[in-house]
């Protein structure tokens, strides 16, 4: 009986093709919009997630803070308040998996006839652990390189491309940083953009001591710009943060009531709030698109009501020859569901096509997940049933005598 009803639904749809098409169109646009918007929203979420992963997990950054000297306040990161010893002390706290003091600056680098301006990081070997960064080639310098301040460099992908090009293998080559020759011993894996849009691969890493003595030496020897700290788990981060604060206040002899001369920032929570923002955006996009799905559903209800009125006599005949209320109900419900199913199918194809097109035209990350397809499908089915039910019930509850008399 179900097969026969499905066949009749198909028949009824074919009887008025233009109307069926227009009814479907509402569904097509609704589902297409949902799929497209969710692809864009989830794509944005995905690219934020990638940025967060590339930054490293459970990360704190301790910056040398503003100090007041003679009434003039000095901005964050410029005061020479953090020392390598602070980093070592933080490393001995509980719940810390890696610590890397960092000093940095920018410099012009030269290889042969090519030159490039990039940022130079002076740090410890642990920096790669903190940032969850791997080498594509070569090796990381060691603690003995730190002790003897050797002139070795690990270069990022962007730097390698700009001064070596694709042809030359950078490992073992000598480059000049601020006129000082450095041997390239390692090549970093590509990390892409950071959350704030900087190219993270446009950098060179050298031993901390080398940077302090040979590149940015001067005013405050032994001080570092910041200390990167990785906690063991996300749960202990608040405890670790207050431990770091207490430790540094003690080490810097800051009396109670006085301001810190450093600041501790939880990068992971910043990243999470960025992720939260994109998630909200994705939800908003989906919600707006869902409205068009709703409108499509109302379109189906509208046409089904017209169809019930038009076919009143047919309903009367069917009742007279033995159709039960639920047979009539099923027949019209099935018709609404078939319409929304095909509308959904076409909308899905158009939505995916549109998303791929947007991805190609804008270079934005587009993500079409099975979940969003499943969601669009189930919402469409629900819309079909919900908006098909009222007209179908109206048909099923017709009085057969009046229906038979209907002209």
């Amino acid at each position, binding site marked *: 009986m179900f097969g026969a009803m499905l066949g009749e639904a198909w028949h009824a749809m074919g009887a008025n093709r233009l109307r069926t098409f227009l009814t479907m169109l509402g569904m097509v646009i609704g589902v297409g919009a949902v799929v497209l918007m969710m692809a864009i929203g989830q794509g944005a979420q995905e690219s934020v997630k990638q940025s967060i992963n590339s930054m490293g997990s459970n990360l704190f950054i301790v910056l040398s803070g503003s100090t007041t000297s003679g009434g003039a306040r000095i901005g964050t990161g410029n005061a020479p308040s953090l020392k390598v010893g602070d980093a070592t002390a933080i490393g001995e706290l509980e719940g810390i998996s890696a610590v890397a003091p960092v000093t940095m600056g920018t410099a012009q680098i030269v290889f042969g006839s090519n030159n490039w301006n990039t940022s130079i990081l002076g740090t410890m070997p642990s920096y790669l652990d903190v940032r969850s960064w791997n080498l594509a080639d070569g090796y990381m310098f060691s603690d003995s390189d730190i002790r003897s301040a050797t002139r070795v460099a690990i270069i990022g992908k962007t730097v390698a491309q700009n001064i070596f090009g694709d042809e030359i293998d950078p490992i073992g080559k000598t480059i000049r940083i601020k006129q000082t020759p450095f041997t390239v011993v390692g090549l970093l894996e590509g990390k892409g953009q950071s959350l704030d849009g900087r190219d993270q691969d446009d950098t060179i890493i050298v031993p901390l001591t080398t940077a302090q003595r040979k590149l940015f030496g001067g005013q405050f020897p032994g001080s570092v710009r910041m200390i990167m700290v990785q906690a063991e788990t996300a749960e202990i981060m608040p405890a670790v943060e207050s431990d770091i604060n207490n430790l540094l206040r003690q080490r810097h002899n800051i009396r109670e009531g006085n301001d810190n001369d450093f600041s501790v920032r939880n990068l992971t929570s910043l990243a999470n709030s960025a992720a939260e923002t994109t998630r909200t955006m994705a939800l908003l996009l989906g919600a707006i698109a869902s409205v068009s799905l709703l409108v499509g559903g109302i379109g189906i209800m509208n046409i089904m009501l017209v169809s019930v009125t038009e076919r009143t006599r047919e309903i009367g005949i069917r009742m007279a020859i033995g*159709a039960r209320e639920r047979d009539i109900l099923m027949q019209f419900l099935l018709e609404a569901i078939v319409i929304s199913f095909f509308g959904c199918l076409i909308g899905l194809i158009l939505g995916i096509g549109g998303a791929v097109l947007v991805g190609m035209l804008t270079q934005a990350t587009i993500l079409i997940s099975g979940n969003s397809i499943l969601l669009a499908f189930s919402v469409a089915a629900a819309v079909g049933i919900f908006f098909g039910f009222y007209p179908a019930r109206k048909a099923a509850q017709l009085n057969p005598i009046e229906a038979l008399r209907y002209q």
Partner: protein
Amino acid sequence: MTESQKKAGNVIRVRGLHKHYMTAAGPFPVLKEVDLDIAYGDYVAIMGPSGSGKSTFMNILGCLDKPSSGEYTLDGYQTAELDGDALARVRNKTIGFVFQGFNLLSRSSLLDNVSLPLVYAGIDKAERHARAAVLLKKVGLEKYYHSMPNQISGGQQQRVAIARALVNRPNLILADEPTGNLDSVTSEEIMALFGELNKEGITIVLVTHEPDIAEHASRQVRFLDGRIVQDSQRGFGELTAEAGAA
């Protein structure tokens, strides 16, 4: 009730049937205290002017409408005790309807039209079409299985409707002005078909206002103002006396 007991008794037994419609001015009676028995295999013509209540009576016999009070027993079942689904089953299996306006589904082939009652009886497609084909052949339309209703004449459409009424092997055929839209020659053909069916043992009740059509039936019942005023089986005097007394 066993099959043999049923056949010996009446397919239709109506007692004290009363029907009124609610209007703004209060209840308006359409049928008043109607009693009627129709035996299995009977061939009854119900006559009467418009407004006499014969159509309402037909609708009640067909389980499309319910009486306001009184008893209606169809094929041994008290119809008042049946719910909507059971009534639908009665319409599907016990009764075959033939209407004045043929009432075929215009978008379906003749074969699909005839097999439609079998869809609601839950019979599979192969058997549906086989049974429909047999009946279309019986009414002389074996060449038109896949034609659409608008491709054949009115008389042929009424034959299709009769085939549809017969397809679920009902005990009773209710025909409401079956020749009302047909010319006299075609009407005679349709009435001949009804005659044949009656000879095969099917009970036929038809409503008509044409006396020469009613002549084909073996019994004539006349309605006037919601009452039966004449029943050829019971004799005239009896009923007119009753009507006069009331």
